[in-house]
Structures are given as structure tokens and as C-alpha cells.
């Protein structure tokens, strides 16, 4: 039941907001729908805690430890982002960058995007997963091009083509998967693509087909994860879209795409019985981490900067999943969580910072701590957290990942060190002058909503020094699931 609500509410919100999104109370409505979704998700989670994993509607939908916390996370960040976007978009409107019609489009697409992601997370059917991913892509394409400026159109176009092509590869991969499934499960239509079924018989799936399928799936969904060298759409889309969209792209979409990749990886590895997929993940992860770090070095645009930082972190997470084993998987899941919390909060502050300064260019933003201390401290603490400084949670996961890598694959640690060190220098050298120093920027027309920022950071902080047992239990179970 909750599941129905979780999936239904966003689509319902899409319609409502599409119909009467131009009204003044649209933002509040948006927040309301997100809140409802969050509550439903909370009930779902509590139910899972009480009765264990779910498998409903002809097994088409399921909730297991791996996706339950991602659902909760998605609903939560979706809600906070909605809160943040309320004043933010008003300010944008006040600056005359948006018309009410665009705002309507924005709100309904926002809900559609949420719905698509939740669908992708909750479905048990690899085909439906693909459909949901495609839907998420399409909705975000519209969101990225919201401003209709040359830059935003270009970004959206690249995003659309690259991810479209990528998703097409993923479809082919899915077809191959289905093909292999038919070989073993026999022809049974819908159920042949159910992840649970496939997982049950993965040992008997045809290895060659599955390894081919994995290549296509990896390239396909990996494009959306932003793995180098398939990442090119990511910085453009993050920089040119409205900030709330950048926040959810970085914070949620990448996670969902990676979730898809990992689901496939579990099947394939079970079938071909070799660590080939893990090796692929590790290589992609390292490459993305290192390249992302080096890209950071010469950024001039604040949102682009953090877009690249997302590439770097996705690389680290992918690498951790590639390492495998209970600890690395645990760390990867933890890193997913803290990264999406931290990165979204950073984008919140970055958005307001660029609004105060009137530009996204880094050397145009100065002395935030003087003009509006909350934004300044938010940005500083957020960056410190994302750079893996304790006591923030990002450090906890990086601690586990690095120590594991040092024991398992020592040859990778120099690359990781390089990536982390270069990323630190790259980001901090740019954040420090933005936060500190003199400035004479005017104040904002609407008071910014920075509660989400500090809520997120507080959660990250807590995760760094104390992890609720229930959460830890999920992580462990999920880690076991991924193997």
C-alpha cells in the first residue's frame, strides 16, 4: 500500500502541478507533494523494518535492503530540495530569468523525475527499470533546458543525445539479458526479466551472453553515472540547469544509475563466475576519480566545479563496489548516502552564493562569510565534508575504502592518493577565496532557505561519528546481497 503511495504520489503531483502549476502557491504544493511522498516512504521503510523485504504485485515490485535506503534517501533529498527550490526559484523569477509557465513546467517535471527515480528503484523488472531510467532522462532534459539560454540548450542537447545513446545500449543489454533468461527460465513473458528470478538462477545463465550484456549495460547506465570517459554531459548539465536540478542530478540520479549497474553486476558476476565485471568497475572507477580530480583543477564555474567533484566521487564509489567484499560494499553504500546528502547541500549553498554574487564564475564570488555568514559557512563546511575531512561521514567511507584498497589491491592506492590529493587542492583552493576575504555583494530579495543545508550537514556529521543500528544493519544486508 505504502508502495503504491510512494510511486503514485509523484505522478499525481506531476499532473496536478502541470494543471495548476502557474498559481502562486505552486512551490508550496510542490513541497507538499514531496513531503507526502517522504511520509509514504517513511511508512514503507518502517514496514520493511518490521516485516522484512517486500515482493508485491506479481513480484513486479520489491523492496530489499539494497533499495530501501535509496528510496528513503531519494524521498528525503527530494523533499529538502523542494524546500530549497521554493525561495530559490522565486529569486530566479525576481531576477527575471524565469516565467510562470516555465515554473509550471519545472514543478511538474520535478515531480515526474522523482516518480521515475522511485519507480527505477522499486521495480523488480529489468525492463521497467530501463523504461524508468529513460523517463528520468527525458524529464531532466526538459529541466536542464529550463532557462532556454544558448548554453542551457546546448547542455540539454548534449545530455539528451549522449544519455539517449547510452540508454539505447542499455536496452540492447537488457534484450540480451532477456534472451539469456529465456534460455534458462523458458518463455514466460513478464516474469523472465524479474531480477529476483534471474538472481535465483543466475548460476545457470549463459556466461558469454551475459558478459556481452554487461558490457552494453555498463556503457549504457555508466553514461548516466558519469563514469569517465562517458561523463562529458555531466558538467554541462550540472552547470547550466537550475540549481535544484543540479542538486537532484548529482545527489540522486547518479545514485540510481549506479544502482542499476550494480544490480546487473550482481547477476552477471553470479553467472560468469569470474571477477571480470568487478575489474571493469574498478578500472572505470579509478579512471573517473583521477580524471575528475584533474578536471577540478582549472574550473572557473562553481557549479561545474562540483559537477566534476561528483564524477570523482562516483568514481570512488564505483571503485569500491568493484573491490567487493563486505567492507568495501558497506563503504560504497555509505559513500552513496553521504555523498548525495553533502553534494546536494553544497549545490544549495552554491546556488545562493551565485545568486548573491550575480554570477556563477568563481572569481566573481568573494567573501561570502562577510555578506551572508550562513551561506559562507555552509559552503565551507560542505566542501570540507565532501573533501573527506573528519568528523564528517564522507571520511568514514573513504577511510574504509582506502584501508581496504591498501590491503586488497595496493597498486590502486597511488591513484587514489593522487585523486584525493589533487581534488583537495583543486576544490579547496577555489572555495577558500569564495568564502573568505572582502566582499561588497547586495543581499538577496528573498531570504534563502538554508535549513536543508544544515540538516544535511548535520546528518553527514552524525553518520561520521555514530551510525544508527538499523541503518548499519541494512548496509550490511545490502553488502551481503551485492557480495
Amino acid at each position, binding site marked *: 500500500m505504502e508502495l503504491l503511495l510512494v510511486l503514485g504520489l509523484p505522478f499525481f503531483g506531476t499532473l496536478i502541478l502541470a494543471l495548476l502549476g502557474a498559481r502562486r502557491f505552486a512551490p508550496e504544493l510542490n513541497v507538499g507533494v514531496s513531503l507526502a511522498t517522504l511520509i509514504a516512504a517513511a511508512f514503507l521503510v518502517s514496514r520493511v523494518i518490521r516485516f522484512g523485504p517486500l515482493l508485491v504485485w506479481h513480484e513486479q515490485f520489491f523492496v530489499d535492503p539494497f533499495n530501501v535506503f535509496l528510496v528513503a534517501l531519494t524521498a528525503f533529498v527530494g523533499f529538502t530540495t523542494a524546500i530549497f527550490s521554493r525561495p530559490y526559484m522565486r529569486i530566479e523569477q525576481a531576477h527575471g530569468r524565469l516565467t510562470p509557465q516555465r515554473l509550471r513546467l519545472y514543478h511538474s517535471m520535478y515531480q515526474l523525475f522523482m516518480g521515475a527515480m522511485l519507480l527505477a528503484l522499486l521495480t523488480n523488472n529489468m525492463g521497467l527499470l530501463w523504461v524508468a531510467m529513460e523517463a528520468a532522462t527525458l524529464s531532466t532534459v526538459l529541466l536542464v533546458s529550463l532557462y532556454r539560454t544558448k548554453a542551457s540548450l546546448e547542455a540539454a*542537447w*548534449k545530455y539528451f*543525445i*549522449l544519455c539517449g*545513446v547510452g540508454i539505447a*545500449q542499455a536496452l540492447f543489454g537488457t534484450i540480451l539479458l532477456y534472451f539469456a533468461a529465456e534460455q534458462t527460465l523458458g518463455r514466460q513473458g513478464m516474469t523472465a526479466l524479474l531480477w529476483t528470478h534471474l538472481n535465483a538462477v543466475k548460476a545457470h545463465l549463459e556466461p558469454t551472453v551475459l*558478459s*556481452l550484456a*554487461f*558490457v*552494453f549495460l*555498463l*556503457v549504457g547506465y555508466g*553514461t548516466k553515472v558519469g563514469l569517465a*570517459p*562517458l561523463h*562529458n*554531459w555531466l*558538467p554541462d548539465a550540472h552547470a547550466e540547469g537550475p540549481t535544484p536540478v543540479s542538486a537532484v542530478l548529482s545527489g540522486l540520479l547518479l545514485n540510481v544509475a549506479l544502482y542499476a549497474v550494480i544490480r546487473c553486476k550482481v547477476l552477471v558476476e553470479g553467472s560468469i563466475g569470474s571477477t*571480470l565485471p568487478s575489474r*571493469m568497475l574498478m578500472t572505470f572507477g579509478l579512471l573517473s576519480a583521477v*580524471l575528475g580530480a*584533474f*578536471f577540478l*583543477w*582549472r574550473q572557473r564555474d562553481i557549479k561545474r566545479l562540483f559537477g566534476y567533484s561528483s564524477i570523482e566521487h562516483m568514481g570512488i564509489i564505483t571503485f569500491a563496489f568493484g573491490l567487493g567484499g563486505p*567492507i568495501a560494499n558497506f563503504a560504497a553504500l555509505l559513500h552513496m548516502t553521504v555523498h548525495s546528502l553533502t553534494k546536494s547541500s553544497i549545490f544549495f549553498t552554491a546556488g545562493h552564493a551565485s545568486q548573491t554574487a550575480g554570477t556563477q564564475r568563481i572569481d566573481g564570488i568573494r567573501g561570502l562569510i562577510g555578506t551572508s555568514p550562513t551561506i559562507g559557512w555552509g559552503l565551507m563546511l560542505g566542501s*570540507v565534508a565532501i573533501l573527506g*575531512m*573528519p*568528523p564528517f561521514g564522507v*571520511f*568514514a567511507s573513504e*577511510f*574504509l575504502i*582506502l*584501508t*581496504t*584498497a*591498501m*590491503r586488497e589491491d595496493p597498486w590502486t*592506492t597511488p591513484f587514489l*592518493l593522487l585523486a*584525493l*590529493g*589533487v581534488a*583537495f587542492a583543486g576544490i*579547496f*583552493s577555489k572555495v*577558500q577565496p569564495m568564502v*573568505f*576575504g*572582502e566582499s561588497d555583494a547586495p543581499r538577496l530579495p528573498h531570504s534563502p532557505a538554508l535549513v536543508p543545508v544544515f540538516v544535511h550537514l548535520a546528518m553527514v556529521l552524525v553518520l*561520521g*561519528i*555514530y*551510525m544508527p*543500528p538499523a541503518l*548499519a544493519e541494512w548496509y*550490511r544486508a545490502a553488502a551481503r546481497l551485492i557480495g
Partner: protein
Amino acid sequence: MNAEPWLSYASASLPVQALSWLLILAACWCLLGLIGLLRPRSIHFVAHALFPLGALVCVGIMLLAGSFLATGHAAETMILPLGLPDLPFHLRLDALSGFFLLLLGMAGAGISIFAAGYFRAGEGTAPGLMGLQYHIFLASMALVILADDAYLFMVAWETMALSSYFLVTSQHRIPEIRRAGFLYILMAHLGALCILLSFGVMQGGSWLFTFDAMRAASLTPFWATTAFILALLGFGAKAGLVPMHVWLPEAHPAAPSPVSAMMSGLMLKTAVYAMLRVGFDLLHVRFWQWGALVLALGLFSALFGAIFAAVQTDMKRLLAYSSIENIGLIFTGIGLAILFDASNLRLFAALALAAALLHALNHSLFKSLLFLATGSVLHATRQRSLGKLGGLIRTMPWVATFALVGTLAIAGLPPLNGFVSEWLLLQSFLFTPQLPHAFLNMLIPLGAAALALTVALAAYVMVKFYGIIFLGQPREATLAQAHDANWLERLGLFWLAAGCVAIGVQPQVALRAAGAVTGMLFGQAVTSGASIWQIAPIAPEQASYSGLIFLAGILAVVGITFVGVRLLAHGRMRRTDAWDCGYPWQNSRMQDTAEGFGQPIRHMFGAFFRMERELPAPADATPRYRIQIEDRLWRALYLPTARGVQRLADAVSVLQGGRLSIYLLYSFLTLIGLLVFVL
């Protein structure tokens, strides 16, 4: 280990579970910091109420740690329900951590009292926020020392770095300070990564990151060496060991003086602590090559620091370089200890380590004292450049007196504390000929000579420091209005100065504390032949020293002479102008400047520096002489690295060429490549 009577009394009056009390006190620090946020702008509330309380907490920690050491309890451990799910926070109080907590409390008390009088309104960060950062800094240092698992250690370690970074950049409107802060935090983070990897090696496959597991783990020589080298890199970067020292002379002057004092006096010591913890406690083997490496690094840092301190013209930079020198001395001691221990000469190892520990304690006292004194001078004159100071002994007699104690102590002169540790270090050098490595036996005496040179150079540096700031004629007219420190500041200075004298005159107590540590690590305490009168590391007939007799003797002779002179001769005296070989028109510009005082050093050790001179032409209407000294290592090591990364970044950025077809090509090729790879 028999306890000092007064110490045993103190311990009798204190609860046995020292660890929990220490934790409570550390929590009190955090609490004080948070309370400060209630009225962040009120300087009176924060400075005059919270900081003295913080100082009290310091005293409490000092007493607890001292009593723990004196009574020689078994190590206490504790587990907090925090941290990672499988890895709750482990804490442990043993002799080693006890000693460094003693150090922390002792120096911290003085600094906090001074800080209470130091912070003025309208300087950089709001006082409340500063108080928070300050006390978090203290608490994190205490936790670093108490941590008993890698995760808690790293958390405390980086919290320490972070809070100190915010303290350093409290006056962030000045670009140089921002730059210094960035360099500092960057080096700290890189170091932390190395430490992390070192722990990753040491946990040795048992996925427990507790220190107990690491003690149990048996590593192959290769992995043990890897862990040691990584740890040396990481902790050396924090301690300011050459060549990882570049951040230190930038960051320490940039910070407000009490913060400089804490960083130099306390934070560097946490690095020393961690090095000892890893080197002697966690790693189960030690190879003499490690000792040789550490010894070489330490000696080089010591010499390097002394030489660079001698040519500085900014008083806080001078002290920062002198910190590098002292850290070098401490690591020299550690290196010797490893050497001796690796060849099973445990008594000598204990001696060398005791010297290192004692020097760490002493340095934390006199270096904080001097940094605080510069703080008072800074407030009184708004001048940091030695070229604009002078003659302050007349306007600031209190600060001058306390600073004199610090100066003599850091110059390694008896009967003050600096001398004791350096003397012990030299003593332990004397036993190196018993090492079973003929080659080392040839080399190490030269090390002793380098040590002697360093110590003597330190005296030179300190004469320059004190003489140019406090003696002579004021180089600026404004210095006449300089005001002396307020009573809180004086109290802080007095506390530290008293510490210097006490340890100098009665080193036995401190040595017993160090002996507890060496007893834990080597089963050897350096107390043989020591009496209440004198210390004798190995045997009295070999070498002994008694600060008490020194002080008493000198005072007695001085007194007798004074009285005698008055009785036999007379006390008549008249004030006149200085004679100066009868040259009548001399003025304050004719004294040696800081540059002038450094000139012989520049002349002798030119190879160390990168100098830019600007000499006046013969027929120059307004002749001006400028010289700029740079660290060669900066250009040799750091700039090339930065340039290399920049170049790589440029190369990488070609990937993002902006052309869609190329992007498609990338993914196409990736696809094809993977397919080929799979087939």
C-alpha cells in the same frame, strides 16, 4: 618505579579511573566552546570567563596525567558506543599517552590563561566562534592522544587540523594569511592520507582497526617498512620535518599568538606522540635502517631550522623555524632510540627516548612562552618585523623578564630545562660506539657534532631574537609608548617560565615521568643513579648533572661577590651617555639590524639559501639595501609538483572539447573496446 612523595599523595587524593575523568574534562572543553556561542560577540564573557575555565581544565588534566604516571597504574581502556558500526571508539590511557597529556595540560594551562588576556574585540573571527574552535582544538588533541583505534585517531587528528586551520585563518581578510592557511590544510590532509594508508597496512588483514589488533598483527619486513615510511611521511608532515616543513613557517606566524603557541608547543607534539605510538608500540619489529633514516632526517631538520631561524627578520617566523629545529632534535632522539632498540641496547634506547620526551616537554613550555611573548610585543607595538623593534626591556619589563627565561631555556643553557634534554641527547650519542655497525659508528659522531653545532646556533639565534627585540635602543620612535602585558597575560607567561625553571632545576621529576614511558616501551627506566640532587643517565661516575647545584652555586657566588664588592669598594655610580669609543653622534640606526646579525650565517651557509640581494650603487642619493632569503626546497620540490599537476590538468581538459561527435566517439570506442576485451 618508585613515585615522588608529593605525586603519590596527589594520586591518593584522586580517583583511580583516571581515563573517565580525562574524558569528562575533554568534554568540558567542548562544552565551554559551545557556551561561548551563546554570546559570540561579548569579549568579556568569552575571554574573561571561559578561557580561564579552560585553563583550569588544563590543570586538571595535568594533575590527573601526572598522578597516573607517578602511581604507575596499569593501562586503562574504555569503549564508547560511537564510531563505525563494527568499530566503536576505543580509548586507552597508558604511560605514553599519560606523558603527552601531562605536556598538553601543563603548556595548555599557561596558554589559555594568556589567551584570556590576549584576545581583543574586533580581531578577525567573533570571539565566541574563536573560543569554540580553540577549545575543540584542545579537546581533539587530547583525543588524539587517548585514541586506541585507527578511526577515532583519524577523526581526532583531522578535527585537530581543521579547527587549527580555522584558527589560523581567523584574520582571513589578509591574503597572505589565506595563502598560509591553504598551504597548511593541504599539507595536513596529504599527511593524513599517508597515515590512513599506514593504518591500512598495519591492520594486517584482520579487519579490526583497533590498535590492539595492530599490535597483534605480524607483518612481513616489507609491509612493516611500508607502514613505517608512510607513518613517517604523515606524521613528519604534521611535525614539520624537513622536507615536509614548508607550511610551518607560513602558518605559525599567520595565526594569532596563542594559537601559534598551541600549534608549535602542543600540536607538533601530537605528531611526535603518534610517531612513538606507531614506531614503538604498534609495530612489533624495528630495523636499524629506520633508525638511521629518522636520525638523518632529524639532524638535517635541526640544522636546517637553526640556520634558517638565524636569518629571519620576522620574529614569529624566526620562532617557527626554531620549532623545526627543536622537532629535529626530538626526532634525532627517536632515531637513536630506534637504532639502540634494533640492536637490543635497551638501556641506551631508553636514554635516547627519555631525552626526546623530555625535550618535547621542554619545547612545549619555552616555545609557547616565547610565542606568547611575541604576542604581547605585537599588541604593544603592532610590529612583527625585528627591524622596527628594540629596547622594549625598558617599556615592557615583565614580558622582557619572562622572555629572558624562555630565551635562555631554548638556547640550551644550564640551569634551565632546555639544557637538560640536550645534555641527555648528547649523552645518548656518546654510547653509539657500542652499536654493532662499524659504518654507523664512524658516521654518528659527526651527527653528535652536527647536534652540538645546532645547539650552539640556537644560542646564536636566541641572542639575536632577544637582543634585537628587547635590548638596545628603540628603532622606532613609537616604541616609547609600548605598554606592558596585562595581569592575565603575565600570569600565563609566569606559569610557563616557572615550568622552565622547575624542570631545569629538578629534572628528576620529569625524568621519572619519561621513565614510566621508557619502562612501558623498553622495560627500562632512566632513573639509575639519580638522586634528589642530580641526574645520572647511566652511572654517576660516567656523567652526571645537577641543575640545583648549578643554580645554587651561581646565586651564592653572585651574592657573595656583590656583598664583597660593596664591602671592599663602594657603590658610587653616575649615569652618562654611552661611550662607544668616544663617537658622539651615534643613534639607534647604527645598531645591528636583524639582517646584520644574520650576515655571518648567510656567509657561511650560503648553500642552503636562495638569496636575492639589492645593493645600493656607490653614488646613490637614497641608498637602500634589501635582501630576500628563500628556501631552496620550495623551488626544488613544491613548485615543480604544482606545475606538473597543472600541466596534467591542461592535458586532461582536452577531453572536454565541447564537440558532441567527439563525445559520441568516446562512448563508441569505449563500447567497442570493452566488447573486444570481453571476447
